[in-house]
């Protein structure tokens, strides 16, 4: 059914359609409408999951983890400070191989206080062992929540589906909401690899030796690597079931491009307009939007960008003392290329400031005009009146 939905609502629909049995969450702007929508359904008796009211995001994740250990499907949602507070439990969730799915709505982290879009909250959880999907619109939000369960339950790692404050969370778009039967067919009930059973008591997460610890971490790494194939398989199955195509990298007019713009999230959809404008003037420009950040699709990126002359990366985030995280990661991925491709790192749109087509076009222009990438990220980009 086609509905006009905000991104938060689309994510909530995705969550409900996936039939989680336990939802534990704590409200925080701009994620609260997800919680509110689920609560509304809970109040009407149409949620189908047990809602747990908890006192913090840390507890929300602890509750999801414990519930997951009993073999049920779980969901939560948070943003910004809430995600930061969860940090400790994120390590536990992946270490315990719990296939929890969480929506994080990117929001700037304090200080100073702010509510707008900024990817630093989720990217600072890079090393917690969670899969991370960055979505660009509301349909993708709904679909990715459903896909994430299937991936997570295959590789037994938790997934974070990342929306952006207001650009996706609060903007309305037409969204195709699938029928429950279709989703059930695509995503059968969770069959846990193990579950807590009072009749057969075990100790979970017990103290281990140094060598055992190392083994577990390497097994998690193996699962992360396996997740790349799992995501691709799920994309394929999803297209078969629902007719909507997704891939780890959204590539747009990139085949013969000399300059390829790489970005993630909502800037990726704006960039399509800029690319079309530049193509109209004869410039060979293309776009790659990274949908999956963890595991990082190194091989796919290398293959896709191998022929580019120059690459421009726009990050709506910054790792202080380094540069934008996507840029940094991309450079690392391209290290294995035979040829050195200059990568120009732009940090734009911090704190939710607007990254317009004109701004993107200016960044691409700068990329083509500069001799070589500067050491520091480029942030002094201003729109020009006429290209």
């Amino acid at each position: 059914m086609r509905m006009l939905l905000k991104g938060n609502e689309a994510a909530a629909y995705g969550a409900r359609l996936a039939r989680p049995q336990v939802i534990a969450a704590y409200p925080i702007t701009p994620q609260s409408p997800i919680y509110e929508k689920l609560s509304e359904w809970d109040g009407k008796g149409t949620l189908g999951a047990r809602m747990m009211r908890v006192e913090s995001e840390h507890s929300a994740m602890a509750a999801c983890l414990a519930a997951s250990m009993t073999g049920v499907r779980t969901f939560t949602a948070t943003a910004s400070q809430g995600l930061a507070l969860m940090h400790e439990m994120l390590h536990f969730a992946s270490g315990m191989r719990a296939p929890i799915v969480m929506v994080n709505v990117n929001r700037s982290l304090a200080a100073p206080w702010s509510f707008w879009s900024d990817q630093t909250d989720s990217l600072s959880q890079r090393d917690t062992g969670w899969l991370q999907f960055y979505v660009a619109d509301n349909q993708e939000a709904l679909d990715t929540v459903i896909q994430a369960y299937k991936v997570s339950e295959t590789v037994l790692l938790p997934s974070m589906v990342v929306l952006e404050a207001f650009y996706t969370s609060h903007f309305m778009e037409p969204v195709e909401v699938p029928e429950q039967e279709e989703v059930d067919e695509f995503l059968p009930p969770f069959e846990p690899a193990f579950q807590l059973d009072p009749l057969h008591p075990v100790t979970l997460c017990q103290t281990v030796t140094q060598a055992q610890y190392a083994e577990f971490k390497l097994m998690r790494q193996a699962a992360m690597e396996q997740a790349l194939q799992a995501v691709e398989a799920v994309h394929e199955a999803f297209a078969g079931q629902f007719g909507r195509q997704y891939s780890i990298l959204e590539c747009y007019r990139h085949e013969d491009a000399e300059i390829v713009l790489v970005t993630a999230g909502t800037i990726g959809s704006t960039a399509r307009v800029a690319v079309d404008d530049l193509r109209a003037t004869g410039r060979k420009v293309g776009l790659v939007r990274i949908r999956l950040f963890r595991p990082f699709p190194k091989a796919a990126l290398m293959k896709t960008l191998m022929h580019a002359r120059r690459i421009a990366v726009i990050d709506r985030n910054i790792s202080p003392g380094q540069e934008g995280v996507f840029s940094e990661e991309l450079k690392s991925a391209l290290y294995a290329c035979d040829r050195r491709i200059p990568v120009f790192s732009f940090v734009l749109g911090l704190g939710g400031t607007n990254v317009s087509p004109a701004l993107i076009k200016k960044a691409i222009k700068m990329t083509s005009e500069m001799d070589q990438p500067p050491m520091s990220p480029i942030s002094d980009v201003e729109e020009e009146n006429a290209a």
Partner: protein
Amino acid sequence: MIRRLRPKLDPKKPFVAISSESSLDFKTGAQRSEKPAFINKVAPCRHACPIGINIPAAFHLASNGDFDAALQVYLQDNPLPGVCGRVCYHPCESKCNRGEYDDPVNIRSFERFLADKGHVDVTTRLSPYTGNKSVAVVGSGPAGLSAAYHLARMGFNITLFEARPALGGMLRYGIPSYRLPRSVLDTEIDRILDLGIEVKLNTTIGGNLPWSGLDEYDAVFLSTGLPQGKTLFSSSSLQDRIFAGVDFLADPENSPLKDAGQKTLIIGGGNVAVDVARTLLRTRRGQGGGITLICPESREQMPVLPDDLAEAVEEGLHVHNGWVPVEVKEDAQSPIAVGFRQAEVDRDETTGQIAVRPVGDSYRQYEADHVIVAVGQELAAGVLPEQVDISSGRITIDSFGRTSRAKFFAGGDAAGNKAFVADAIAGGKLGAMAIACSFQAEDVGEQFKACQLGMSKTFSCRHFMQRALMESENLKQIVAYDQINTLFFPPRPRVFPPKEDVQTRRTDFTEVVKGIHPAEMPLEIARCFNCGTCIDCENCMDFCPDMSILKDAESGIYDFDADYCKGCGVCSVACPRNIINMEKDTG
């Protein structure tokens, strides 16, 4: 348990740290520097109770529906719970920790409920004391009944002497039946007599039986009370028109004051004065126009219990405060005219003594057909034996009820205890302990100290009778409000007992305050924090992160598992009622 890194994940093999081995190899107890100690303590209500009743333990038993066992707890210290549940000034409630949270627990109504509901055979719980010692108890008011009861329970042979034709003293001849129905008193006295106490009514020692008649007894407990009303006016010509409040209360139905057309002036501001006024109202079948109560104290200073005063005012009694009588006009033919001056009263907060001070020049004269004086009582003249010091106007006793004469002990109003039923009962209980100690040649001071509740003037009878219990409870530590974990107690309003309709009670002696309805009582019982009394809530077991709280299946006694308790103290915090102390563990 651990697999090598494999390219493909096999969910049938373990891939998270999971162990079906016992974690008991990790003896986390080695980390401990403190250990939990489980010990019951004294609740502030019990500490404030002159009788030292273990109130929180009774609430606990009642919360399980075992009202008989709860009443048994009361009867360990107090032989008259039905009386105290009606007339006590409930100092327990003033100190109730719940009072700092929302409202104090309605302890007095609870005591009354138990007394009315529970059944206990006190004779089945005698102490191991062996008898062959006999005690004469002189006077059967609350002090005498208490002494007789406790001594009989200790196994001694008791004879109870009473000058009047029935037992009870001021309970029967002072407190009107609208506050204390006689059936309740009779039931409680019968329960005391079930212990095998010999009763001699209509026997005045020093009157129809000489004091030498008590020589055969090993000890004598004097609880003769203060039967004589204090007089204000020495005039003999007005003898037939001026009455003592206590004399009126002893037999109101046969008093010449019943005629509603007469004007009666009552002087005094205590319970006797107010009871006289209310009794007169009832004998006059609700015609209160001629009744005036006047006293030097302000409304707030009146020594009557506030609830009783409020009920009297509800019933329409006229109270005039701030006037002290200064003269009376003697004229046998006219109404009595009493002159008053405006006055203020200074009360010494430590001794309770009052000093009346006339202020200003205001003068007022009241005329009445009769005057009833209720300004205190004194010892009856010439009824106490020689060698018993009464030079202070009361029987002189030491801290344990011993008089100046060997083998003679005393308690209650006559011995200067506070003029409340509970304090008289406490005096009888203390005297019983002193007498028992004298028989065993034990130092009563030491015995008292061992089972004293905190720094109070009372002690635990149970511990005195069963000394082996001494280690099981810390009788010196009083649980403070900030030691209660109030997170476990949702706020709940106090339940109040219903009262008889004002119009009905003006005209007859129906009991004014009713019991809390049995259906509502559990709500009030559930409000008790049970400060310092373990109620087996097992919070400590639920919250212990190491599952190291052990409970003996048979005895129900709690201990900690020394191998695994880390000494974190979570149990101590999770205990709602301050049972668990954290102590240094040097072992």
